[in-house]
């Protein structure tokens, strides 16, 4: 069976990861930041799947499922927090959340 080369999968994952990374850095909206982080997590998940495929093990997929679950939990808490933040700051600009510094 022809397989997608591992390198290609990893490069894809890497690109995805980098995209997520860059968008975390350039986005100021907290929701978008959260989304970008999710992209990064999924990139990691992708890498796991690719690796699992390479070694023909289920471990990669297992890990991916865990990642998904975790991401869901994280997003739920995250959104709740964002709601609170919006409640207090009346904005979703992450730069506005800078009460603590120094």
């Amino acid at each position, binding site marked *: 069976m022809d397989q997608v080369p*591992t390198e290609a999968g*990893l490069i894809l*994952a890497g690109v995805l*990861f980098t995209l*997520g990374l860059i968008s*975390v850095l350039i986005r100021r909206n*907290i929701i978008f*930041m*959260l989304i970008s*982080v*999710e992209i*990064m*997590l999924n*990139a*990691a*998940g992708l*890498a*796991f799947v*690719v*690796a*699992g495929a*390479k*070694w023909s*093990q289920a*471990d*990669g997929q*297992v*890990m991916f499922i*865990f*990642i998904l679950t*975790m*991401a869901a*939990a*994280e997003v739920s*808490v*995250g959104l709740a*927090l*964002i709601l*609170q*933040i919006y409640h*207090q*700051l009346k904005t979703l600009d*992450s730069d506005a*959340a*800078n*009460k*603590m*510094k*120094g």
Partner: protein
Amino acid sequence: MSKTDFLSVVPLFILTSAAILILFSIAVKRDHKVIYVITTVSLAIDFIFLVWYKATATWVIEPLFIFDGFGTFNTGLILLTALAVTMISYAYFEQREERKEEYYILLILATLGAIVLVISKHFVSLFLGLEILSVSLYSMIAYLRKRARSDEAGIKYLILAAFSSAFLLFGMALVYTAVGTMEFSKIASHLSSLEAMPVIVFAGFGLMTVGIGFKLGVVPFHMWAADVYEGAPAPVTAFIATVSKGGMMALLVRFFTAIDGYQYHGLILIFTIIAIASMFIGNFLALRQGNVKRVLAYSSIAHLGYLLVAFLAGGTLGIEAVSFYLVAYFITSTGAFGILATLSDRDRDAELLDDYRGLFWTRPWTATMFTSMLLSLAGIPLTAGFIGKFYLVAAGVREHLWLLVVMLAVNSAIGLYYYIKIIATMMEKNEVERPASNELNPSVYVVSGVTMAILTILLIWIGVHPNGMMVLIHELLALD
């Protein structure tokens, strides 16, 4: 599942059951006191079980968990710390308006996560433990949701933690890609069969370092520490400072020893740089800081730098040193934040230096305890912190890590300044009678007070007579 398997994971069961029990209990009736008692008792039972069970040999549950001396030791430490945090939490939350009960569920789950972390021997269990810990922490940090700072700290922690998790995961994935296994020991055996470390594995380890470094709060992944410490409720801060960081440290030690990272100069170099940078930047940041919580945050950055010295020294002595230092550091930090929590009132935490002015004369016992905690952090004799530092330096000197130990010495001297500053503030002569802010029944404070006293006594006991603790650690670590 064998009997030993079962007995080994009983501590985890107890905690999960406790969390569920509390859930039910809340469904029946919200009663802070009851929940508090359940938490305390379950943590205590858990610890007692651990002591009673007294595993005589290392037991492995393939492929995820390993129950060895090191793991048991850290589990016990985490349980006791969680217990102490529970103790100080009661009075703290009692005077606050939010619903308090869920906090305990989160606390127990976070503890569970940390324990899973320290007994894991596989990327999956590592990830699992880490995330149980982290997700609980998000909510705990932002628990006082009416407070802007609490929320701000929560969201910052969440984004950063998730971000770092992504690095960790990607790193793991890279390693997995290269070696085809996620078990520590197998990674090690695979790597040792290779001539040199493949670039991809190194990149994987590098990315994992980001994730681990974040949890440890070492430079340059330290930025969250101050804000989160400041924004989180004092007991939660105590928990982060101790259990979260300590658990990660234990994991790092286990992982690094398993793959024998000491042979890779690149990794050693990276950690050396991180250690030195953490010491210096942590101390410099704390130097003129006026917020006690932030001071403690920055100082924890430096302390993790110190810990890395012993970690880098490695060997039995290095691991013993790390363990001992963790004990000392746990006691001290819990104590310090506990006192901070005791002094806090309904509206805000007692985090400004001004809150401590003249404390020595108005509340001499509290101030004395706080002083001993600070002196222990500074590594002054008669406290556990001193013996801990001695252990670190001994480990470093033994391995001839002169650069690191000299840096440690220099930084200890710098660090003195801000610890002393807090003490000096407490000693100041103006004795303003602060209004009695404690509207609660004084008996509530007895619990916190007794906890603090026990911690202080422990601190000094270990400082004066460290042999018992040393022997305990030594024996546990020698367990096969």
